[in-house]
């Protein structure tokens, strides 16, 4: 499961020996995140975000369990029970704001984690399974976050649930029955709130399970690295502990500083004012907007305004929105270039940065009302999004001539530190 030079686990203390024979959990930890897991020596800070995503999930689970002790999932009292947490529960305001902003922090680090994977080709062989499980985690996160946002039963909770479950009604013939089945009624109501609470509590543990598979699948080939060149021998690697535990400790500190600044100094910055109004099925908010982390997908949904072929615009939008995520499952096979890292892919690198700008543009458009120029910008943005993955990427990976690559990770590292760096990898 790991490299032959990985440090073997040798318990010294009799208690640890006894434990190792009965239930070798210390061995598992040692080999997974300890000195027994060799990792490329050249990882940059973008490799911190996997651990940070795990930390964000743990924060969400811990704060969430405490919130569930005080929250009541009933449409009559849900809104006030959240305010009870904010006002009367000891440190309840902190737990609730940490959970609310923790969701945003989770998505920030996961998006950076995903774009890291896109830039350095971490989705490619031999790590396709890591990527596939990652996309599953992303989908589960989106479902969990959506249901969590419904729980305070504010205006945006209610209307968000109305709009998002409304996607299913676009399915021909069975759409409306499916939507009613999901909601447990004709509109979001008590049945909806109860099942969303139940699933919102369940799914994080499903995510935790898939994360274990994600890490397991990662530990078979070992981590990718900024050169995209596979590990060849011992000098290419360092043991995870203490090298990367120390680096992740520093990364965690920076992450928590940002998290704390958001939670304590501007906790409502990423939320919507409307969600401090109790849900009211008779009053529609002027702009129904999802949470920021859904905005690019929301813009894609809204970009389809034309009934094309026998499919109407709404169904096009819904299919496209789901497709925009589902296509990530096929990414390892859409990109046929054997070169992983964009460092050596001059053409792909340009399109990668265009994609980053495109997703930010879509996010901005998703926030805006259905007016020009936002409609045409989201249409252009959506065109590029699909073109990038389904048209440009397969072609680029065919025609691109990669830059000369170093022979090994160590060679790349030493070239970087050589006094005459200008002479390139050959100098090492």
């Amino acid at each position, binding site marked *: 499961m790991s490299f032959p030079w990985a440090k073997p686990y040798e318990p010294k203390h009799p208690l640890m020996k006894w434990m190792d024979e009965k239930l070798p959990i210390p061995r598992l930890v040692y080999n997974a995140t300890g000195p027994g897991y060799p990792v490329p*020596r050249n990882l940059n800070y973008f490799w911190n975000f996997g651990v940070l995503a795990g930390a964000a999930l743990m924060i969400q689970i811990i704060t969430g369990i405490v919130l569930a002790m005080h929250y009541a999932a009933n449409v009559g009292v849900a809104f*006030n029970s959240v305010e009870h947490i904010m*006002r009367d529960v000891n440190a309840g*305001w902190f737990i609730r704001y940490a959970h609310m902003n923790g969701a945003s922090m989770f998505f920030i680090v996961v998006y950076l984690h995903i774009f890291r994977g896109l830039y350095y080709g971490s989705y490619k062989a031999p790590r396709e399974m890591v990527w596939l499980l990652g996309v599953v985690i992303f989908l589960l996160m989106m479902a969990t976050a959506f249901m969590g946002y419904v729980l305070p039963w504010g205006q945006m909770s209610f209307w968000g649930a109305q709009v998002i479950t409304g996607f299913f009604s676009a399915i021909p013939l069975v759409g409306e029955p499916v939507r009613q089945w999901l909601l447990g009624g004709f509109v979001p109501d008590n049945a909806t709130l109860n099942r969303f609470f139940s699933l919102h509590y369940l799914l994080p543990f499903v995510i935790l399970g898939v994360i274990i598979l994600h890490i397991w699948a990662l530990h078979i080939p070992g981590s990718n690295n900024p050169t995209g060149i596979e590990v060849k021998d011992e000098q290419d690697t360092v043991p995870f502990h203490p090298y990367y535990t120390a680096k992740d*400790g520093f990364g965690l500190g920076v992450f928590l500083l940002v998290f704390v600044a958001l939670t304590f100094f501007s906790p409502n910055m990423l939320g919507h004012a409307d969600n*401090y*109004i109790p849900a009211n099925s008779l009053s529609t908010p002027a702009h129904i907007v999802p949470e920021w982390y859904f905005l690019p997908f929301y813009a894609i949904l809204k970009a*389809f305004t034309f009934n094309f072929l026998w499919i109407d615009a709404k169904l096009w939008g819904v299919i496209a929105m789901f497709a925009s995520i589902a296509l990530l499952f096929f990414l390892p096979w859409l990109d046929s270039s054997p070169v992983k890292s964009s460092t050596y892919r001059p053409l792909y690198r340009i399109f990668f940065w265009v994609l980053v700008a495109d997703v930010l543009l879509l996010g901005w458009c998703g926030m805006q009302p259905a007016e020009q120029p936002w*409609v045409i910008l989201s249409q252009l943005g959506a065109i590029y999004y699909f073109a990038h993955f*389904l048209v440009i990427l397969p072609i680029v990976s065919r025609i691109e001539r990669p830059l000369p690559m170093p022979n090994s990770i160590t060679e790349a590292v030493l070239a970087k530190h050589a006094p005459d760096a200008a002479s390139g990898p050959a100098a090492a």
Partner: protein
Amino acid sequence: MVRPLGFLVGLGFITALVLAIFTTPLKNEPNVAYSFVKHPRHVKLASDGLVPHWDKAQLQRGMQVYKEVCSACHSLNLVAFRNIQDLGYTEGQVKTFAKGFQVPSVNPDTGEVATRDGLPSDHFPAPYANDVAARAANNNAIPPDLSLITKAREGGKDYIYSLLTGYQNPPANLPAELKPGTGLHYNPYFPNLNLAMAKPLAENQVTYADGTKASVDQMAKDVTAFLVWTAEPKLVKRVQVGWAVFFFLLIFTVLAYLSYRNIWADKKH
């Protein structure tokens, strides 16, 4: 297989989008009302920023404005009398204050609906028994609960302050369809321009115990400050705790960075 199929799917989406571009008009429907709506004016309060504190004298004045003016129509459901100790009142003062209110109750002998004197554990009583009564008394508009109002509106405290001070006569060039209808009042800070609430504050409407002159601007500021407190009574504490946590983590992060550098000192990477 994946690439040709993906190419076809991509082409399908792109065609649908290109057709959508050519069939969507590039001009927006003109929205005249939009050009009359004003951005909220900024109001500076002691609870703003990164070193906030509660201006207790102002909060007390704001509560007086709420009690004597706003509470005629607006409830404050989430605030209990005991909470106003935060405003600098003693326990005894809170008890006396609560006693001044009649809260819904049942007669302990007959079980009939009745009222009793307020206790510190009671919340501010609502002016109307239910939404129907609220609608009936207010030209079919329910006056919103004010507990969270500064968090529940775009623009927050600035919006509330601007709305309270922003009543004016409609401008001469206002199109007829945007003129206030019967029972409506023009206010350029309100998103629809016309709202059911009449101008609530007039000069010297309340008499402040501390001698502050009760101008409309002063009362609007005071009640806004009070409503910032009702929306988040833990605001000041939140920021103070935040700084302690922030500096603790800053030290942690510096130490973590130094130990990271130390551990990697002998490794080129």
